[in-house]
């Protein structure tokens, strides 16, 4: 079996939440990061509406997607680090960061389908489904890599996420600022969220012809029509 076939097989098993996949992933160092980066691109595609409504030019579109994928990978990294640190704090030194990272990374496999979020109407339920599916996969991975019961792995993953959110709002603010700056730099515009844009769109009036550009013409049947 080639590497690619092995990777695809493992991704399939991870999607089915089979623990063997996460054990096998511990021996494949490149797999987790590849999945996370591809998932990041897929998530960025699924949420590309943000780039469109902010009027990002076509030539900057691809670069903006790639930057989003890189930020996504950093998010994975920090979450994994939070889980690992909590795990070491609670259980001691025999938990290896690499194993945790590979297992959590494989847990991102459902996010490979995140481009489907772009679909109208079905996109939001798909987003919810993929988020839950990914959470289950990550919990399975944490359970396998740290040899924990499932509920405990869920708790640890949740605590790790909470620590990440607190960090983002405190010691991580410079990094968040850097991420925003890089996104703005690459996109060429300030990226506002959809709610803010909706308010702006609804506050704008529709285009009307200006008086200077309007002249009356007579049609063949004598109607006066604005041209």
């Amino acid at each position: 079996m080639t590497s690619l076939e092995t990777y695809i097989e493992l991704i399939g098993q991870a999607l089915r939440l089979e623990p063997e996949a996460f054990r096998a992933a511990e021996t494949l160092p490149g797999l987790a990061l590849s999945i996370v980066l591809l998932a990041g691109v897929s998530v960025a595609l699924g949420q590309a509406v943000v780039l469109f409504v902010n009027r990002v030019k076509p030539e900057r579109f691809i670069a903006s997607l790639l930057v989003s994928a890189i930020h996504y990978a950093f998010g994975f990294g920090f979450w994994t680090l939070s889980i690992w640190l909590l795990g070491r704090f609670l259980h001691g030194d025999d938990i290896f960061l690499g194993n945790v990272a590979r297992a959590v990374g494989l847990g991102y496999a459902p996010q490979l389908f995140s481009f489907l979020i772009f679909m109208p109407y079905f996109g939001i339920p798909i987003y919810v489904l993929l988020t839950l599916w990914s959470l289950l996969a990550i919990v399975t991975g944490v359970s396998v890599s740290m040899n924990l019961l499932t509920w405990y792995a869920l708790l640890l993953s949740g605590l790790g996420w909470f620590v990440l959110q607190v960090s983002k709002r405190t010691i991580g603010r410079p990094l968040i600022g850097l991420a925003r700056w890089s996104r703005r730099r690459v996109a060429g515009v300030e990226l506002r969220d959809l709610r803010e844009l909706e308010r702006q769109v609804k506050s704008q009036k529709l285009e009307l012809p200006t008086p200077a550009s309007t002249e009356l013409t007579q049609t063949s049947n004598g109607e006066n029509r604005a041209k």
Partner: protein
Amino acid sequence: MLSSMPLLTALAVIGVGIVIAMLLAPLESLGWWAGWYGDYLKESALSPQPNNQATQCEGVNTASDKTAYLVFLDGIAKVGGNNDDDVQALLDTLSQAIPDVVVLGDVMPYSVTNTALTEARPLARFWRRADQWKIQGHYPLLSFTINIRNLFQVLVSADKRYGPTYNQAEAQVILNNLLEHGYQLDKRLPLTLIGYSGGGQIALGVVPYLQHTLGVTIDVISLGGVMSSDSGLSALRYVYHLVGSKDQVHKLGSLMFPGRWSIVFNSYWNQAKRQGKIHTIALGPMRHTGTASYLDAAKYLDDGQSFLEQTVSVIKTIVTQPATNHRVSGK
């Protein structure tokens, strides 16, 4: 097993095709918003479109003696350009029944650039073929792709992420159409939007943008309309939901869109219901489309009116009588 494989393969191909089509659906409106199409809509506001057919009688001054404007937004079978015969019959009958109301029916509700499916598109040739099949009654599944494509635009309109840009663009198309047909901004004539089937959702979606610009009273008449709990409900005066007892399609709106469910207490739809904005009017034993539909001039009610006449009569009552005095009922 072997005999079922081609069917499974066919279903898989169809499924993938549907997913791809849905992924592409938001791109027209998003591309317009992002400026990929230039100033197409602004320019069209200043010059009439060559393929539009105004429904006004020739020789009638479209502005000075009119009391209201009515814009018809056709259902998801619309290809653009010319109206189907039954739709044109509705518009012509309405024009005759309410001569002091300007009746317009040449907007393409499923294109933010007001472009017919059969023109100026990469797949125009396919849509022209599908339109021919529809008219000839051949290959119904393939001709139904027109409906599916337009249905996806209805979903774009109803999606909270895409709706604002899509609905603003369609509102611009409608405003351009009004101005082309002599709408005078300073006269502030009231506006009624008739949304047939999927056009019902489009009608709701454009209301806030038209209301904000024109500052006039806007009502929506849904003719078997499939509608979401759209924020447009907060900007209009009334929704008149005209339904036939044999029309099952309009119920899709109340099933598909969670905001229409009564348990979603504070949705725009349920708020509008509590405010008395939504009036449901039974028209009689009418189907959604085709034979025995709202537009059928050859099927008759017990009182001798054709289904088309009944539909026109109810719309005329809604448009011409003050809303607070309505005693409108179908049979």
